[in-house]
């Protein structure tokens, strides 16, 4: 991370090789165009460079930190662009095209993520996807589905805790 902080090109390339594709993919799904996704990916790496000194490995993984930056930047952009249509997301478990050796790490991340999401019920997974990718608030989901707000909040929290627990279990086995 000190390499990134100092603007070291090799450090930036190493981070790019490992994490750019999932970040770009998230950008494309959230923002709906490859141009916007590319801008987002650039912004994420620039933000990571600016915030590198604040990254604390004892409080979370680098992949999580980068993806949180990406999601926050994308959500902020969607908020700014009033009226922007939010793309509907479909989680497709398809085999990606050939990836380089450097991307093995992100493929492992994906494997862990897919398995973690598979521990959720359909309702929980759908709720998580509508909030995380669709940007729907708990209140909006409650109103759309005609269920109590408290139920939506509890279900969302339960879903995240389940995912977290599955991740922790998986990491123990690695």
């Amino acid at each position, binding site marked *: 991370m000190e390499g*990134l*902080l*100092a*603007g070291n*090109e090799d450090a*930036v*390339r190493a981070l*790019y*090789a490992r994490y*750019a*594709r*999932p970040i*770009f*993919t*998230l950008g494309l799904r959230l923002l709906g165009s*490859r141009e916007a996704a*590319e801008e987002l*990916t*650039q912004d994420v*790496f*620039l933000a990571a*460079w600016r915030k590198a*000194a*604040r990254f*604390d490995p004892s*409080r*979370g*993984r680098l*992949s*999580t930190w980068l*993806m949180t930056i990406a*999601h*926050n930047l994308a959500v902020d952009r969607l908020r700014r662009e009033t009226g922007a249509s939010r793309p509907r997301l479909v*989680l*497709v478990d*398809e085999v990606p*095209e050939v*990836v380089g050796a450097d991307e093995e790490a*992100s493929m492992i991340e*994906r494997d*862990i*993520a*897919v398995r*973690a*999401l598979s521990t959720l019920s359909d309702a929980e997974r759908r709720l*998580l996807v509508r*909030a*995380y*990718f669709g*940007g*729907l*608030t708990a209140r909006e989901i409650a109103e759309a589905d005609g269920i109590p707000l408290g139920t939506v*909040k509890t279900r*969302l*929290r339960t879903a*995240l*805790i389940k*995912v*977290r627990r599955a*991740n922790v279990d998986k990491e123990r086995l690695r």
Partner: protein
Amino acid sequence: MTCVQVRELLAERAVGVLPDGDRAEVEQHLRWCAGCRKEAAELDSAAATVAFALAPVPMPAGLGERIVARVRQAAGSPGSPRRLRTAVAVAVAAVVAVAGLGWGAVMAGRAERLADRAEQVELRQAEALDRFRQVLARVVPGAELPEQETFLGRLVPVGPEMLGGGAVLQLVSPNRIDFAIVLVNGLDTDGPDGVPYRVTLSNRSGDLLRVGRIDELDADGGAQLFRQFEGQELVGYTHVRVTDASGTVVLEGVVDQSPAALGS
């Protein structure tokens, strides 16, 4: 907001759908509450997992090099003021991190109230670093800060009953006006022997230079001082002391003025 109220909102925060008003209050709470921050980090991590589950898409050609170029441009070319300031910031971050560990060790095994306080002090390190950077940016707006003339030291509590810590940055130059920036954090805000705190530099002969007086601490027991020493070189003034209102030394440290101190 109470911890219970905050924790009810952390899941929505993690997936990025918390309304602005609530978001501001939650973020404010998380700045000082370690328990809620830990839970927030766990939920953030879970939310990020959702993104990693997406089926990867093809990448635009050349994006990697464009990103490298953008970061390189932002970081500045070798020798540029920005790069030098970044190098200073890295060194300050290291000093602050070490100072944090020192405080933790000092506080170990002490009464719970003090342990809580020490934890809060450590949690403020990132903000302390930001403040140092802000001071630095004001002091040298766009000006070159020569790496070989910039030296750092850390301040640690003098005794087991003392609180806080800090960092010192000195510019010691043959052709510029020397200056010192002192950043303290975690000092006692409500004790009878608190403010004003005084910060001094001394050399081996015992000659004293005043950096300044701290009349007010922020909520974290933090403050910053900056002084330029016109007509006075700081060579050899490596010992830094912070004394409280009763004259007791509460923090102490040594600035390493050896040429290689900052080069790493």
